[in-house]
């Protein structure tokens, strides 16, 4: 057990939500008036209607071993940030116990304590010491930090005159040079340009792999999670739902996001047509209902087609559209002599992995005789989401790098 570096047992954190009074702090007048009120009417002495309990974390327990890089995933308000704050000793837990064997540096915000009036140089020292570095340590790494941030020219300019990009670069550069045993990072990479994000992620991965650093990482960018973390925890409503490899957890997260979706599309209104779709649904490679796919997983569309009579030259056509209704590709299957008359036919379309880039897609499916007749058609159905499961473009998450992955060949120095 000596390599367990963080041990969390039955951790809970309660907040009191204030109703009516939107201010986060208490004003003395409220305390006085409340006291008077409860004195006058002893009825609501016990129950204060103004506040309500809210458990940001409930009975959370987990162990983290040295050198593990664990991603924490969950919707907004799932308790991710509260968990990190409790682990960093910023807020104290309501119940439970945490044992940490090592120095912790937490990065809950980029540039904590940066003062706009101070110069870049001064802020490096200030921010470094806030994050727990000694003066000597900062001095030793100063040149490295400045080089990493690429702000050499502006070191003696007050940071209030920095562009926001420069500001973030400098702030992250300081953080990236921390040397704690445990690094806690909360969504700080959401800022900054893609190139710098990649550089930071690379730096974090570097220190973790080469120096056995333990990393706890919260992000909404699943690409970053799967690139950096080997494991992940899924949080929902203050509880840990699951802990597994990051790709499995990401899958589960996306699945959970859409549990209100219908399980499959069943059509009952076309029974009189010669040939028609009975149902259409998207499934994964194991035939389980799914509408969130990793970019490196096959996307399958399962068709139930009923045929009342044998028509010649009928085609099953499928168009894929992206979210801006651009047609990405078309695929067709001739159905002549394929279908059994008078019963349900099961046909599965398999879209190969590593083709569609992370995005939202819809499909239009039709049964038609080319240039003659559209027999049955459903437009814009089966919405699916493809998420980045650690592709090489994972860090360009917010950028459009195209609709498809193409494994191009490069020929270097060929002439």
């Amino acid at each position, binding site marked *: 057990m*000596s390599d367990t570096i963080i041990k969390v047992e039955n951790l809970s954190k309660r*907040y009191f939500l204030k109703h009516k009074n939107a201010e*986060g*702090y*208490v*004003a*003395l*007048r409220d*305390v006085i008036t409340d006291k008077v009120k409860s004195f006058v009417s002893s009825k609501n002495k016990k129950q204060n209607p103004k506040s309500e309990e809210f458990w940001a974390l409930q009975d959370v327990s987990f162990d983290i071993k040295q050198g593990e890089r664990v991603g924490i995933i969950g919707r907004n308000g799932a308790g991710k940030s509260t968990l990190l*704050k*409790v*682990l*960093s*000793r*910023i*807020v*104290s*837990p*309501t*119940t*439970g*116990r*945490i*044992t*940490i*064997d*090592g*120095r*912790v540096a*937490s990065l*809950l*915000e980029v540039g*904590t*304590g940066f*003062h706009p*009036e*101070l110069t870049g140089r*001064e802020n490096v*020292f*200030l921010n470094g*010491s*806030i*994050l727990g*570095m*000694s*003066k000597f340590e900062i001095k030793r790494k100063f040149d490295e930090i400045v080089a990493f941030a690429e702000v050499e020219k502006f070191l003696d300019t*007050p940071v209030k005159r920095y562009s926001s990009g420069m500001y973030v670069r400098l702030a992250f550069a300081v953080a990236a040079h921390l040397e704690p*045993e445990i690094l806690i990072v909360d969504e700080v990479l959401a800022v900054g340009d893609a190139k710098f994000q990649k550089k930071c992620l690379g730096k974090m991965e570097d220190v973790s792999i080469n120096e056995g650093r333990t990393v706890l990482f919260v992000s909404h960018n699943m690409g970053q999670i799967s690139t950096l973390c080997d494991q992940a925890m899924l949080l929902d409503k203050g509880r840990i739902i699951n802990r597994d490899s990051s790709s499995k957890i990401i899958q589960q997260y996306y699945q959970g996001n859409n549990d209100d979706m219908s399980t499959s599309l069943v059509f009952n209104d076309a029974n009189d047509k010669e040939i028609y779709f009975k149902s259409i649904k998207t499934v994964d490679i194991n035939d389980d209902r799914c509408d969130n796919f990793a970019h490196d997983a096959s996307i399958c569309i399962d068709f139930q087609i009923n045929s009342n009579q044998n028509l010649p030259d009928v085609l099953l056509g499928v168009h894929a559209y992206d979210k801006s209704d651009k047609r990405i590709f078309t695929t067709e299957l001739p159905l002549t002599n394929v279908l059994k008359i008078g019963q349900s036919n099961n046909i599965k379309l398999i879209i190969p992995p590593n083709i569609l880039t992370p995005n939202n897609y819809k499909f239009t499916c039709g049964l038609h005789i080319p240039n003659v007749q559209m027999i049955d058609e459903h437009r814009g159905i089966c919405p699916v989401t493809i998420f980045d499961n650690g592709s090489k473009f994972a860090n360009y998450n917010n950028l459009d790098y195209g609709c498809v992955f193409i494994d191009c060949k490069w020929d270097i120095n060929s002439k």
Partner: protein
Amino acid sequence: MSKYRIVIESGTENSNYWKDLWKYKGLFYFLAWRDILVRYKQTAIGVLWSVIRPLLTIFVMYFIGWLFGSKVPDGVPRILLVCAATLPWQFFSSSFSETSNSLIVNSNLLTKVYFPRLIVPASTVIVCLIDFLISFVILIGFMVYYQYIPDYKMLFLPLFLLLAIITSMGTGLYISALNVKYRDFRYIIPFVVQFGLYVSPVAFSSNDIFKSEKIPEYVKYIYSLNPMVGVIDGFRWCILGGETTIFIPGFIVSIAISILFLFIGIWYFRKMEKTFADII
């Protein structure tokens, strides 16, 4: 491994608190350094402000004292009497009001990083102390002008400075913790500071109170409850020498109150500290 073992539990005292405070001395230094650097950035005359502000107060207090005919010991220029009181009063009032707001001003730090929160108000006191030391040139200037030579009692001055630090630290800690929860104190503090200037012996001397026959004995004790009475009387005793005497029982009350404030301040601050990030 166990060298850095941290156990976080609800409700239990952090046994390493004072050790942590020592470990974070670098941050303490940097926060004070930041505030000093920032204080007079983008001002035309910069650090001169730490001299001009007390100087103006000295002139006003000099005028008020002269107007009401407060007594001045023989051989001591009135301006020195006022100066020896205004400087420690300015130190107390600025550090009291600035420490009271220090946690709120630094709320972005409190909600994002861990460190012993005591560092924030403590470093604020240090910044005010440095301002005080700079403003000390005023006193030296007047002493040179009036060719006034202090005697050996001047050597006790650091003791009374320490008392001033204890007083402002104790009250500041208590109010800063309260201020996190009840912002009402933001409005109370300027009033207390303004009021304090007139009930403390700045324009007049404590002798006017203690030697007066018209003032009943119990009022003299109530007057001594103000910890700044002890500090200012001490300063005057050190700087102005023999002619000014200290009313000993009152002085002891002042010291006791100062130390009591410090303990209450630390105790309350430590008690509230864990909830700062939640309620700020």
